[in-house]
């Protein structure tokens, strides 16, 4: 209802504006003032629009400052929870600084010139067609600056995407299907058993199509939660059984698509445990804020006689970030980063692959 109300109001406002303009035109016509109805801008229009230009520049600056204040502290610009994440954040910050400088200057020039050089009947523009020095200047400056950023970016990229940079990473398979995630740990041997979707046998509970005869696969562990020991490099091996999915772990600055018919990889080292991240001051603020919002919503729900929302506690998440069908918006898996000890405790409670199979008849 509220939506409809807003839409109606907006429609009425626009009708009102257009009626007011017509009345304004008509009243001038009636009052006998000589009306310029050529529909071509005259000096009055130029003056007025030039002022609006300056006003709009102020609007752009205001919305920029507002956005920076309101959103600048989002934990995705700082607080990376992985080793390479900090590199990416630093690069991001430098790039943002560059963008804000260029944006501020160029928008200023654009709108200020529009304001300053507003037309009038008595003035004449400067006939100025070319200036090779100037043009060379603004070809070379972007070229030089970009060379720096390209080099910096490529060094970071080649480091992040180097799958062999860590000795002995823990191998974990991320397995995507409409609309959930599974993780498969490689077990003591740290080698995943061979797999193919053609080997899926639902009756035997072999849901990931792991080769039941592969000795490497016997000690694999399949879970629906992703536990990672802190400071231990992980090599993710990704598969999908049906359509494209994308394993997006924003807090770790990690993302890779899962492609049916092929295996993709990504590697990172988590550096902050879930518990530590919950204690991070900016995260505490964020969680309090979210819980306030949720409480307000719960009150609304209570009035309608519906269940209130659960309070929120921070957890790392793996989200699907490639359109994959109806429940794409709800394809997630919890990630828990913990100490090696906690991880071992959890891991030892899981069932290994060969014991998880259901014997037939």
């Amino acid at each position, binding site marked *: 209802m509220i939506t409809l109300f807003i*839409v109606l109001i907006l429609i009425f406002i626009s009708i009102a504006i257009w009626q007011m303009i017509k009345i304004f035109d008509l009243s001038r016509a009636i009052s006998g003032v000589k009306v310029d109805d050529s529909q071509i801008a005259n000096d009055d229009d130029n003056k007025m629009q030039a002022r609006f230009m300056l006003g709009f520049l102020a609007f752009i600056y205001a919305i920029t400052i507002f956005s920076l204040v309101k959103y600048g502290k989002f934990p995705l610009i700082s607080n990376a929870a992985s080793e390479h994440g900090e590199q990416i954040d630093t690069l991001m910050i430098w790039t943002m600084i560059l963008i804000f400088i260029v944006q501020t200057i160029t928008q200023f020039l654009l709108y200020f010139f529009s304001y300053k050089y507003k037309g009038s009947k008595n003035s004449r523009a400067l006939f100025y067609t070319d200036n090779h020095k100037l043009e060379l200047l603004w070809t070379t400056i972007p070229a030089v600056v970009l060379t720096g950023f390209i080099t910096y970016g490529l060094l970071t990229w080649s480091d992040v995407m180097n799958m062999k940079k860590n000795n002995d990473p823990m191998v974990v398979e991320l397995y995507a299907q409409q609309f959930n995630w599974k993780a498969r740990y490689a077990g003591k041997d740290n080698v995943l058993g061979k797999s193919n979707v053609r080997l899926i046998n639902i009756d035997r509970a072999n849901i990931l199509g792991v080769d039941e005869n592969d000795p490497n696969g016997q000690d694999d562990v399949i879970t629906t939660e992703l536990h990672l020991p802190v400071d231990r490099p992980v090599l993710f091996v990704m598969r999908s059984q049906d359509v494209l999915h994308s394993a997006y772990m924003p807090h770790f600055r990690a993302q890779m698509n899962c492609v049916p018919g092929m295996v993709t990889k990504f590697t990172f080292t988590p550096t902050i445990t879930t518990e530590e991240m919950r204690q991070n001051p900016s995260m505490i603020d964020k969680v309090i804020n979210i819980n306030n919002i949720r409480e307000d919503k719960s009150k609304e729900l209570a009035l309608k006689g519906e269940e209130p929302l659960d309070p929120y506690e921070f957890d790392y998440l793996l989200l699907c970030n490639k359109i994959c069908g109806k429940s794409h918006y709800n394809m997630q898996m919890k990630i828990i980063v913990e100490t090696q000890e906690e991880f071992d405790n959890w891991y030892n409670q899981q069932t290994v692959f060969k014991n998880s199979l259901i014997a037939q008849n």
Partner: protein
Amino acid sequence: MAEYIEFDKDHHAHHHKETFITKYIFSQDHKMIAKQYLFTGVFFMGIIGILMSVLMRMQIAWPEQPNIIFDFLLGKWAPEGVMDADIYLALVTMHGTIMVFFVLTAGLSGTFSNLLIPLQLGARDMASGFLNMVAYWLFFVSTVLMVISIFVEAGPAAAGWTIYPPLSALELAQPGSGLGMTLWLVSMAFFIASSLLGSLNYIVTVLNLRTKGMSLTRMPLTIWAFFVTAIIGVISFPVLLSAALLLIMDRSFGTSFFLSDIFIQGEVLHYQGGSPVLFEHLFWFLGHPEVYIVLLPALGIASEVISTHARKPIFGYKAMIISILAIAFLSTIVWGHHMFVTGMNPFLGSVFTFTTLLIAIPSAVKAFNYITTLWKGNIQFNPPMLFAIGFVSTFITGGLTGIILGDSALDINVHDTYFVVAHFHLVMGISALYGMLAGIYHWFPLLFGKMMNKNLGYVHFWVTAISAYGVFFPMHFIGMAGLPRRYYTNSNFPLFDDLADTNQIITMFAIMGATIQLVFLYNFIYSMYYGKKAPQNPWKSNTLEWTASQKHIHGNWQGNIPEVYRWPYDYSKPGYNEDFVPQHIPLKKGEEEY
């Protein structure tokens, strides 16, 4: 062509009588075809596309709440007024398809290339009026098919406008991948055929039918932009056609070009050996140049409009041409930046980062040249000028964030989030839309012989401008907070609860921006019938279209075709009383060209 050059004054008198059908429907006259594209592509499809975006924004702002608008417009797809998740994805897909291809490719190029290429070059018509007519009607068929696909039983295509297989290939994966997707693909096949015929016609016309004296370096920048756009289209659209054909084979004839090892809904499918990544390569080989197919005409229009209304020559004419050519060349070798995290070899990612960031250089040259054109101008703030300035502004804002997305290392974390949505909407959506609106306001007198109301134009621009920034500026930050695009609702992620209020604000701005377009629509239709009669050359422009017969006649000029003696940007040239010297005025003795 001989009889065209000797076109005589009485030609119109003994011109054969045109029937309603040959004049308004199966017309071969470029001006009429331009209007046909304008009404089908821009207005008809534009209204559908914008309406869809409003529905999506309402769903994002007030998810899972009953809404009578949904109930009214979506019917069975919004049971009790709550939008269905499949239909949300269908809206995402159809909005993207309609806006990118139908409004900003066919609508923009179709209208302005058709209208301006012959008129600004001094040609009687396109090289082949017949092909031009065929191109429009293929486009029309494509439009009809795409609109029909919205109404099929299982819903329209819903795999995103990029239609990545396997999602788009398997009906088991998504109901929209049935008949809806088939119609989508067939519609696009017609669309591509239309686009190719149109583009070939533009290229041939520009190369062969320029009037005497109209050398390539005396062509208006609009024509340069349309010309280069047509070349990119001819190079890249056939690749999409081949991708679409292979996808049709996979869907209907059991081949495995893009599919392999699929287990879905309890069964293993037979596909073996194909790769969805191959499809992504083929798609983006068109998909990225497509961005420039959308953007370059807007750049061309902005150049012409800014120079004319600033009463000042465009600064660095040759640099502008070179940067159009550079952008066009680079646009064909950067498609991989859409695929950094698809599993493509990371080394290839490095190459694409390099080529992508190079595009910033010609783009920067263009932006600075526009700004310098304004410097010491005598700026006449007519509505087209406002939109052209707005174009430069959003082109800069949107373009700058490209430095983040084009950098493979940074793309990892913002890929497929709302950051991307904000970026491309500003740099190609809003910018191209502004270019198009600038064009419509500027050439309305040429199209209909009437003036549009300037005050309504001012209101239209300012409300649109505020809405555009209000929608897309905060959206960057939502993306940087990690919110993925194409989510039907974010309420399953308490992590994103603190973005809900921003999403509501964005939706308000979106509704405001969409609503104000009604003022434009009103202004357009009202002025078409009751607008003030336009003078021959209302903006005191230099280009040839303003010398043509104001009454639309077949052949454009009553008498001989004007001859051209100078470039089109002699505004405020010293030595002349008027502040413009049209192209057909001969140089004075001893006068340098520029």
